């Protein structure tokens, strides 16, 4: 057995263990030299990115990977399973993590000069938590990782704006604890009726007892819990504050990933723990989800218009975009599902880019208020161009990622015979235009009051690289959405809905 084989066989667990170990070693690295932390994080994230890409490649070429921890076979032992769904989500996590990591060197130096070491340590642990949540095939293990990611997220948010950040973090903590407790309770219910904790095993055991009220209660607990975690509309109250007051890099990371992984978990529980028939036909949970999502899409967009803080505006826009993902999932037809899943990727790219831009602007000018953005187009041309591209993606201009997912979602809605959702999607595009165009007008056409001649003062290179890369990907995946759709999402959607079988 060569060394390479040795690694490839164990990639599923290494993707979780390496950031975990690296996270705990960060204090030691930082103790040697504070500056080393960043390189350490880069090294780790790069390794994780390589591993997740390799995982996804393996899944695409040779099917689902099963990894039995400690050699115990499921359902007794903990199993890590990588199929198309979590392989795809893991890759997103690793990529966004790497981008934010690159970006963070300057922004953290400025915003949190005393907390560089804890920041990076927690950063890696957050990645661990998200990776673990995604990869694990055991629902209790899932809960543990969910809490790891939540706790680290609380800590990251608390590092933000003095006072506000801590309060936001505390509110998130309370909401998050309720959510996690609901999920824990749901897990308990399922364990009580099936005696298993393994997802695949459970899916086999559950159908015979679907008429049991306990199963229904468990589903309800899961849905409420995850709705809080993803910030679905009526349960979104924690989200705007948390996104607004976190440090720039943390906002980008949390906005880009946390809710997406929450959405992943929702999909996983709806379609892999329970079966599509149960969620779609027997309980009509999917339909309820679509209506909630449609409401979130509209209300999120409307509320975003009312904001003057850019990060808060983006946070509300996230609420609406989460609605897109869940709408696609809830439509429960292959096309809608593809749209929803594609939007996980697309929204991560766009929203991460937008938050990075907001952070870069704050880094250079200290401004977060939209009405003070005049003249930024001349001052920070590259940054604002990235903003333009990402915002156009959000609007759904063709040729950008936003269009492709919108196309699929709208088509899925038509297929489901739900014309109202088509209208919701299209109207929300218009609302997106309204709130983004205010920013464009200020950036390029507004005249700053004090200064006549604006000096070009671009964000540092380490911030520009990830932003530009994300913007380029926004366009790349807008034009070449064929690849993720063909290789990953189409077979995946079929498999989730029980139409086809995963390779």
């Amino acid at each position, binding site marked *: 057995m060569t060394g390479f084989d040795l690694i490839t066989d164990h990639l599923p667990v290494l993707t979780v263990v390496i950031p975990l170990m690296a996270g705990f070693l960060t204090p030691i690295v930082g103790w040697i030299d504070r500056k080393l932390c960043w390189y350490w994080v880069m090294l780790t994230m790069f390794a994780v990115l390589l591993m997740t890409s390799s995982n996804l490649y393996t899944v695409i070429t040779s099917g689902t990977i099963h990894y039995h921890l400690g050699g115990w076979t499921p359902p007794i032992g903990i199993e890590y399973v990588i199929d198309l769904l979590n392989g795809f989500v893991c890759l997103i996590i690793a990529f966004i993590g790497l981008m934010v990591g690159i970006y963070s060197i300057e922004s953290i130096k400025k915003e949190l000069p005393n907390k560089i070491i804890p920041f990076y340590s927690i950063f890696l642990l957050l990645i661990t938590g998200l990776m673990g949540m995604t990869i694990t095939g055991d629902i209790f293990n899932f809960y543990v990782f969910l809490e790891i990611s939540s706790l680290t997220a609380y800590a990251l948010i608390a590092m933000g704006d003095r006072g506000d950040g801590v309060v936001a973090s505390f509110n998130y903590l309370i909401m998050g604890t309720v959510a996690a407790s609901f999920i824990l309770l749901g897990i308990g219910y399922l364990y009580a009726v099936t005696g298993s904790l393994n997802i695949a095993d459970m899916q086999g055991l559950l159908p015979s007892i679907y008429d049991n009220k306990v199963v229904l209660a468990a589903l309800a607990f899961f849905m409420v819990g995850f709705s809080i975690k993803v910030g679905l509309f009526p349960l979104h109250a924690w989200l705007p504050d948390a996104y607004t007051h976190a440090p720039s890099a943390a906002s980008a990371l949390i906005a880009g990933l946390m809710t997406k992984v929450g959405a992943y978990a929702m999909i996983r529980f709806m379609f892999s723990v329970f079966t599509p028939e149960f969620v779609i036909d027997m309980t009509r949970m999917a339909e309820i989800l679509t209506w909630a999502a449609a409401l979130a899409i509209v209300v999120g967009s409307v509320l975003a218009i009312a904001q003057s803080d850019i990060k808060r505006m983006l946070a509300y826009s996230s609420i609406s975009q989460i609605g897109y993902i869940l709408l696609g999932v809830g439509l429960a037809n292959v096309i809608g599902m593809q749209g929803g899943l594609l939007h996980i990727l697309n929204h991560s790219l766009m929203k991460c880019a937008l938050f990075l831009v907001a952070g870069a602007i704050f880094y250079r000018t200290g401004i977060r208020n939209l009405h003070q953005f005049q003249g930024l187009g001349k001052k920070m041309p590259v940054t604002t161009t990235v903003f333009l591209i990402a915002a156009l993606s959000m609007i759904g201009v063709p040729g950008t990622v936003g269009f492709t997912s919108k196309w699929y979602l709208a088509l899925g809605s*038509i*297929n489901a015979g739900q014309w109202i959702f088509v209208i919701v999607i299209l109207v929300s595009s218009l609302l997106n235009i309204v709130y983004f165009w205010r920013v464009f007008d200020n950036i390029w056409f507004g005249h700053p009051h004090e200064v006549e001649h604006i000096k070009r003062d671009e964000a540092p290179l380490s911030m520009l690289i990830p932003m530009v890369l994300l913007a380029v990907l926004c366009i790349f995946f807008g034009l070449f959405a064929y690849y993720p759709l063909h290789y990953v999402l189409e077979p995946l959607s079929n498999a989730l809905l029980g139409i086809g079988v995963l390779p």
Partner: protein
Amino acid sequence: MAIETVHSITPALAVLVSMVASVLILAFGKYPNIREGWTFVAAFIKFSLVISMLPLILEGKVITYTVIEMLPNLPIAFKVDAFGILFAITSSFLWIFVSSYSIGYMRTLKEHAQTRYYFCFAIALSSAIGIAFSANLVTLFLFYELLTISTYPLVAHTETSEAISSGRKYLTYLMISGISLLFSILVVYHYTGTTEFSFSGIAGLETLPRTTLYILFITFMVGCAKAAFMPLHAWLPAAMVAPTPVSALLHAVAVVKAGVFTAIRVILYVFGIDLMEISGLWLYMAYFVSITIILASIFAMTQDNLKKRLAYSTVSQLSYVVLGAVLITQHGITGGMLHIPYHGFMKITLFMCAGALIVTAKKENISDMNGIARQMPITMLAFTVGALGMIGMPPAGGYITKWYLLLGAAELDNMILIGVLLISAVLNAAYFFPVIYVAFFKKPDKELTYKEAPLTMLVPLTLTAIISIIIGIWPDAPGMFLDIVNIAVANVTGGGI
């Protein structure tokens, strides 16, 4: 009738040229001469690329090129047919003139943010050509939206609050229409599984329930708000706050023509002549645009601002194009399609004249233009040529399209439409002759000191005026617009000429 297809990258290149140029323009923003040099180079290359495809088209072939498979079963693809190249030639040819004209205009007025201006202009041109060469609705939609976005900075160019609010109005109308277009495309895709244009209409639409079909048609036409149909026309006069070259090229040629182009594509290449006829949509649409033709002309008469009067005139003339298409007779369609280049040449002449007046005489209102022709005879002569064309009097080209439209209406024996065409000709005369009269025959209030506009402006407007006359005198010269239109008409009607 089998149509031979040729695969070639040329259409993609033609679209790309100005994209590349736009990047170079940005890069050389600090050196005005080089920057504007790129504009010229791109304009010439683009035009020659477009022209290079003409011989194949005249042979009755079609050029296709698939760029990428954007989504499964939804490629971004180009297909050059006679109708597409008609629009492409018009806009790319006029870009050359407008580039020259822009330089004169922008430099004389010492406008700010010229780099942005040329950048957006180049992108807008790419989009226009992209629309012309689109092989399917999705590609068309891509460039349609790109055109909207890239022209917004041009409309709001002056950055005054008036310009920005006009820009907002522009954007609101066009984005809402874009959404409507997207909706229609989705519906078409849902029911037929394709969005590719076809000479006889997309197969499968005829199975739709009649109501759905009507709604689809309405959303499509709302989607073509760039064509400025009457209830959706308000953006066009508002957009006249833009610098005149923008009004000239974009709001007389590229943008609005993209609108009518899309409308015709939808009417003839998505719905198809047969479906239009069976469903009776053609007649409703014909009456609908007739209203626009008449009302816009009346509105034009009430405008004192020359650019706004021209804008309303554009609104009216655009509906001629659509009217021609929905007449669904050979002559009618010929007239409609032919009106795209003809109106383009004449209207651009008029706008360039208006711009010349703004630059040298600083005059925008017709009531201030007493005796202006004494100082600027060439400009005003060119204006007269354009105006005659609009009214439909020889020698300028306008009379030919009107003739075909009348023939089409006469074939259908529809007295109302014939009446509309005649009345509108009278109305056209009613709002253009006062301008000519004021300029040539009224005595100036005081001694006028200004002279003709700079050569960079004067030459293009003279040339377009001359071309307007040439296409009026020799409309059937080989390879000229009429030839192309005949092929296009043959394609959609399915027969020879």
